């Protein structure tokens, strides 16, 4: 029987690339996004190219009350869930306006963590499943330019780490993806260094390989592991003066 992947935040460029990568392996797709109509064209494209089943589902990561109903409605319960939901927001706005900051915190931490946590429960009960969360290097150390987003991602990273730790002895696997820069909608127009910037297809390939090879935490481009090791190692008195 073919396997199924649920993708939360399916309109994201990384998510689209992942959908193609998994469909190539024969996975059926459950594509969830705020605007389900907006991904119907993608679903049709995936069906045509890969001959798999693809359904478009409505899902808002801020609607935590709706999660139970959403998960109960999944037919079948997927083998893999990938969460690509994320929202950068505007740092200055987040500093000034608690409502704006709340949306950033909830979109990157509360919503994704709760949704994946609930699915992990179901996977554990069933006795199989893989949970994949796209967090960020921004969560490895808070920086002036985006620490509200970064703090939420730090929370999400910690949550995934704890979840992995709790489930380590069982059959359910948890993978944390911390891509460095990726050329997507989110970063369009930013002057990113091309050597440090991955394409969405690269991220999808890395995620597929991580699942295939049983990895726990991946950075996509390897240089990022090094860069983040250095950034984490800087003493705080020195780090606080940097403008990264």
């Amino acid at each position, binding site marked *: 029987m073919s396997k199924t992947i649920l993708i939360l935040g399916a309109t994201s460029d990384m998510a689209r690339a992942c959908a193609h990568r998994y469909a190539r392996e024969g996975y059926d797709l459950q594509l969830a996004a705020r605007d389900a109509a907006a991904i119907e*064209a*993608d679903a*049709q*494209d995936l069906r*045509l*190219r*890969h001959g798999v089943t693809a359904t478009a589902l409505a899902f808002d990561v801020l609607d935590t009350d709706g999660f139970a109903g959403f998960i109960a409605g999944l037919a079948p319960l997927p083998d893999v869930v990938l969460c690509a939901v994320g929202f950068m927001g505007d740092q200055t706005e987040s500093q000034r306006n608690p409502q704006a900051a709340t949306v950033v915190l909830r979109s990157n931490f509360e919503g994704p963590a709760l949704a994946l946590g609930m699915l992990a429960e179901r996977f554990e009960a069933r006795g199989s499943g893989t949970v994949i969360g796209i967090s960020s290097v921004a969560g490895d150390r808070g920086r002036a330019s985006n620490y509200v987003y970064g703090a939420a991602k730090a929370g999400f990273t910690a949550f995934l780490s704890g979840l992995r730790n709790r489930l380590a002895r069982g059959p359910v696997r948890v993978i944390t993806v911390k891509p460095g820069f990726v050329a997507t*909608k989110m970063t369009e127009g930013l002057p990113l260094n091309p050597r440090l910037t991955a394409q969405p297809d690269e991220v999808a390939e890395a995620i597929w390989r991580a699942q295939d090879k049983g990895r726990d935490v991946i950075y996509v481009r390897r240089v990022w592991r090094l860069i983040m090791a250095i950034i984490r190692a800087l003493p705080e008195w020195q780090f606080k003066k940097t403008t990264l």
Partner: protein
Amino acid sequence: MQLSGWGRYPRAEGRLSAPRDTAALAALLAEGPAIARGMGRAYGDSAIGRHAISTRHLNRMIAFDATTGQLVAEAGVTLGEIIDAFLPRGWFLSVTPGTKFVSLGGAIAADVHGKNHHVDGSFGGFVDWIEVMGPDGAVNRCSATQNPDLFHWTLGGMGLTGVILRAAIRLRPVESGWIRQTTIPARNLDEALDAFAQTMDATYSMAWIDCIASGDRLGRSIVMEGEHAGRGELPADRRARPFDTPDRRAARVPFDFPGLTLNPLSVRLFNEAYWQKGLRQPTTTLTGWDPFFYPLDTVHEWNRIYGRRGFMQFQCVVPLESHGEGLRAILGAIARTGAASFLAVLKRFGPQQGRLSFPMEGYTLALDFPVNRRSLSLMPELDRITADHGGRFYLAKDSRLSAQTLRQTDPRWDAFAQWREDNGLAGQFVSAQSERLAL
């Protein structure tokens, strides 16, 4: 940013946008003059300008009818993706250029031709309809019967009639992913032309031609013809999976070669080696679709071997009446200057089909030249010889023709420019090429 085509010459400063949906595209068009850009495989300045709009995000497949082979897809889908999706189900492109890294929109806008032009005509012959966005953001469906003018000027119209959003094309059924290839070495131009004359009913044919050989070896070639192999022609162990062909390992040219790497000597050595290899090859072999149609595609960014200054392609067609003399004069001029073209292709064309199609009944010659003084002074001479023999030029390869030469050899562009003027498209869809050629 700096924009250029595949030849990396010329380069021009311009803006590059990549809208994610048709509403965003319409908003960009409302901002002023622009030109659509697919995969940037046109050699010269067809898809560069003040504002190039990439179709890379408009790349979904929409429908496929397995009874007729009709595929409906967005313009940014590449031909390679179409093969990936449909060859395993027994369908191949009806017409394909020499690289699979071109977009559907680009294939339509240049009305590309393949090795089967003499039998099947150009890409446009397999296009059932297209949808084109005009300057006002309105989308018009057109076909041979609906809005026929828009249809016929858009096939081969080099993006100058609007942005192609979607198209319906017909694929061809095949029994396998293999090609039965026959190789015929020809010691000079006469032998090559004879070989083409004798292979007129082969589905695919083309020749690699050695442009350095001169004297009684002028025009020596390796002529290749091919047919889609039926399932029964495959070795027994391949018949169960007839669409599986060996994966080709891709390599990448990691940096710009210094300008000197491709000098007349290295090209001479390459050509000699290629010729010797052609002589040794068994005359008939089974080969996978990928190496047969797309010999260069495994070397990503091979355009960098010409160094930073880039290269130009010269592609003309000489009509059947005067092809022998015309080709001899062109090859003679190249051999005389010693200009090094190491990828040179000769091919027989059938009659012109689309209103703006480049091909006409005769022979086409496509040659690459590094950008340098010698090449730049040779090109106008080749233009002149082509014109004198009643030939014309392919805009998808052009980077330097003069407006005057284009008009003199190909009056169809006058009518095209007039139609653009009459329909309010002239100021809106503008490429560096359309400005240079006053289209």
